[in-house]
């Protein structure tokens, strides 16, 4: 069963990856992706806002599509909200599949859709004040390849 967690608390990449990979005998490949808060020119922190309820529904819909399309054995999405400093982990995705191509592709698909279809908004706090991060055209364009 795929797992989706939307949380403000930090998570351990090692513990999550270990727990996700553990005890699988028919899975040949596990892929994990981790998103890290990047300092874009003196940024002190980032605030991530989300839409409780819709967030879980939207992610669950995206995960269901990936599970079906790549016949995944399992998937995991963790996404944080609240205040995060550069270097902190924002989110992670893990996919488990019989073969690696499906696991890689499904992880990329999940990332592309989470970027522009999961209701999160980022505000960066830097030396010149606070600014909302604008969505990029290329993030929207990335969806067309799927």
């Amino acid at each position, binding site marked *: 069963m795929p797992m989706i967690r939307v949380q403000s608390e930090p998570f351990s990449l090692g513990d999550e990856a270990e727990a996700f990979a553990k005890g699988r005998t028919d899975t040949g490949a596990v892929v994990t992706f981790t998103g890290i808060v990047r300092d874009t020119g003196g940024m002190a922190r980032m605030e991530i806002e989300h*839409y409780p309820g819709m967030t879980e529904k*939207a992610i669950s819909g995206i995960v269901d599509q990936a599970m079906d399309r790549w016949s995944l054995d399992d998937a995991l999405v963790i996404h944080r909200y609240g205040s995060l400093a550069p270097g902190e982990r924002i989110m992670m995705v893990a996919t488990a599949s019989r073969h690696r191509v499906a696991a890689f592709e499904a992880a990329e698909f999940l990332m592309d859709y989470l970027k522009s279809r999961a209701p999160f*908004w980022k505000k960066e706090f830097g030396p010149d004040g606070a600014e909302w991060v604008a969505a990029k055209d290329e993030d929207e364009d990335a969806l067309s390849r799927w």
Partner: protein
Amino acid sequence: MLDVMYFAWVRERIGEPRETVATEAATVADLVEELKAREPRYEAAFADLSALRVALDQELSDFDAPLAGVREVAFFPPMTGG
């Protein structure tokens, strides 16, 4: 009665995260026009609809969509997850 929610800079311009609105608006676009007529802060938030997205009962939708049977409307800028 509709629950109307605002996120990110839309919430900041309107000055509150949610409110209950009594409306007979047939579509999302009609609701936006009603809100804009109320006060300048709504005018500021809804000035450019191409910069906004709307969700009806937590599903992404569009401004032409009918409001019949809808309980929760949310307005927000394009999402920036991941």
